[in-house]
C-alpha cells in the first residue's frame, strides 16, 4: 500500500507537470481558434525553442530564464515569417494543405536538428533552482522549478485570455476568426493578423520549450509526443476554452503521474487512455465553450 501522503504527492507532481502541458496546448489552441489550423510541427517547434535556448545559454552565457529574453522574440519572428511565407498560402476550405505542409515542416525541423545537434540527449542547466524545494508537510514537498513552471503556465494563460478579450489585437483575432471577408472590410489584413497569431503562439512555444529543456532531457525526436500532449489537453479541456486547456493539462499530468506510479511503463499510456475515455464519454471536452 502506498501511503496517502505519497498519493497526494504524486497527484500534486502530476498537476504541476500539467502546467507544462497546458503551455504546449495554449499555443495550439490559439492558432486553431484564430485560423482553424492545426500545426503538426507544434511539438517540433517546442524542441527547436529548447535548442535555441541551449545555444543562447552556451553562446552568451545567459541563464535559462534570461535566455527567454532572446528566444521568445526570436520564436515570435520565426512564427510571423513562417505564417506569412508559407502557412497563409495553405489556408482554405481544404484541410489537407495545412496538415501536409506542417507535417513537412515537422520532418524538416526534426531532421535539421538531428543534423545540427546529433541524436544525443541534452539538458539545460538551471543551477540551484533545479533541486530547491518547499516543505509543505511531512512527506510532502514541492519543487521550486515545477511550481515556477505551473505559475508561469497560469500567467501565460491569463495573459492570453487578457489579450484575446481585452485588447485591440484580440478583437482583431476574434473578428478574423468569425468572418475573414468582413474583417478585411474593417481594414484588417488577414495575412498580417494570422502572422501575429502565429507569432504569439510561438512566443508561448518558446516559454514552454525552455521549461521543457530545464525539466527533462531532450533530443530532436521528442517533438511529436509534445504535440500529442498539447492536443490531448486541448480536447480534454474543450475546444476554444483557455482555462479548460489548463484543466485538460492538469488531468493529463495527473493521469500520467498515477500511471507511472502503478508501473513505469504505464506513464504515457495512462495519459492517452484518460484522453480516450474522455473522448468516448464527453467528445466536446469537459469545459466546452458555449456558443
Amino acid at each position, binding site marked *: 500500500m502506498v501511503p496517502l501522503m505519497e498519493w497526494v504527492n504524486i497527484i500534486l507532481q502530476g498537476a504541476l507537470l500539467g502546467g507544462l502541458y497546458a503551455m504546449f496546448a495554449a499555443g495550439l489552441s490559439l492558432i486553431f481558434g484564430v485560423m482553424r489550423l492545426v500545426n503538426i510541427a507544434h511539438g517540433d517547434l517546442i524542441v527547436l525553442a529548447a535548442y535555441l535556448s541551449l545555444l543562447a545559454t552556451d553562446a552568451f552565457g545567459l541563464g535559462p530564464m534570461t535566455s527567454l529574453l532572446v528566444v521568445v522574440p526570436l520564436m515570435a519572428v520565426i512564427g510571423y515569417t513562417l505564417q506569412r511565407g508559407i502557412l497563409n498560402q495553405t489556408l482554405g476550405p481544404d484541410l489537407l494543405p495545412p496538415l501536409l505542409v506542417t507535417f513537412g515542416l515537422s520532418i524538416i525541423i526534426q531532421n535539421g536538428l538531428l543534423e545540427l545537434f546529433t541524436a544525443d540527449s541534452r539538458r539545460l542547466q538551471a543551477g540551484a533552482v533545479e533541486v530547491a524545494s518547499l516543505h509543505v508537510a511531512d512527506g510532502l514537498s514541492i519543487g521550486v522549478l515545477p511550481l515556477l513552471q505551473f505559475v508561469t503556465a497560469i500567467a501565460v494563460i491569463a495573459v492570453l485570455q487578457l489579450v484575446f478579450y481585452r485588447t485591440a489585437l484580440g478583437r482583431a483575432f476574434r473578428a478574423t476568426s468569425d468572418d475573414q471577408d468582413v474583417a478585411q472590410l474593417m481594414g*484588417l489584413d488577414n495575412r498580417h493578423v494570422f502572422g501575429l497569431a502565429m507569432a504569439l503562439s510561438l512566443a508561448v512555444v518558446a516559454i514552454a520549450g525552455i521549461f521543457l529543456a530545464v525539466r527533462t532531457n531532450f533530443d530532436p525526436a521528442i517533438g511529436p509526443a509534445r504535440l500529442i500532449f498539447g492536443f490531448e489537453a486541448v480536447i480534454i479541456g474543450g475546444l476554444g476554452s483557455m482555462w479548460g486547456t489548463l484543466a485538460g493539462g492538469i488531468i493529463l499530468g495527473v493521469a500520467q503521474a498515477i500511471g507511472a506510479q502503478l508501473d513505469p511503463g504505464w506513464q504515457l499510456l495512462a495519459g492517452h487512455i484518460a484522453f480516450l475515455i474522455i473522448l468516448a464519454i464527453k467528445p466536446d471536452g469537459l469545459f466546452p465553450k458555449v456558443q
Partner: protein
Amino acid sequence: MAGTPLLEVHGLDAFYGDFQALFGVSLRVGQGQVVAVLGANGAGKSTLLKSIAGLMASPREAICLDGEAIGSLRASDVVGRGIALVPEGRRLFPSLSVEENLLIGGQLGRPGPWTLARIYELFPVLEERRSQPSMSLSGGQQQMVAISRALMSNPKLLLCDEISLGLAPIIIKDIYARLPTITAEGISLVIVEQDIVQALTAAQHVYCLQEGRMVLEGTPTTLTREAISAAYFGV
C-alpha cells in the same frame, strides 16, 4: 456632373471562377451624392459592391476613387482610402459585443466626424446595448450596428448592400430616415436595393443592372416606373 467624380467605375468585368458576373459595368458617384443600384436577384449588384470594396479582384484602372486607380487594392487597403461596405446580411462579428463591433470598424483610425459618441447620438439604442453580444440584438438593431461599424472607418463613400433585407417596413423607414444625417457629413452613398420605392426616394441618381450589364441610368424624376420595371424584370 462637373469635375472628377468621387468614384468612377469603368468597364468592369467580374468573375466567379469561369462564371462571368459583370460585363463592362460603368458607374459614377459624385461628392455627397446618393446613388441607387437596382436590379433583380442575381443581377450582379452585390458583386459590383464587392468589387468596389476590394473583396473581388479587379483590374487596377477599372475603379477610381478621387481620380486614383484602386481596382487592384485588397479590401483591407480600400477601407483606408475611404470606402466602407455594409455587407448583405449585416454579418456582424458574433464573438464581439456591440461596442467591439463598432471599435473594430474604426480600428484604422482614419480621422473624421464619426466617433463612438457620434454613433450613439445617431442610434441611441446601441449605447444601451453596447456590451451585449452583437447577435442578441433584433434584426433592425443589428443593421444599425452594421451601418455604424462601416461609418466608424470615416469613409468618403458608403456602400450599402440590401440594408432593408428581412426587416419590417417601419424599421426600414426608420433606418432610411437616418441616411440624411449621414450624407450631411459629406459622405456619398451607393445603395443597392430590391425595394425600388425606398431607393427611389433616397437617391439622386439611379442605375439598373440586369444579368451583369448596366441597362438603364437616370434620375428618379426622369426615369419612369415602367422603364425601371422593364429593366428589373427584363421584359
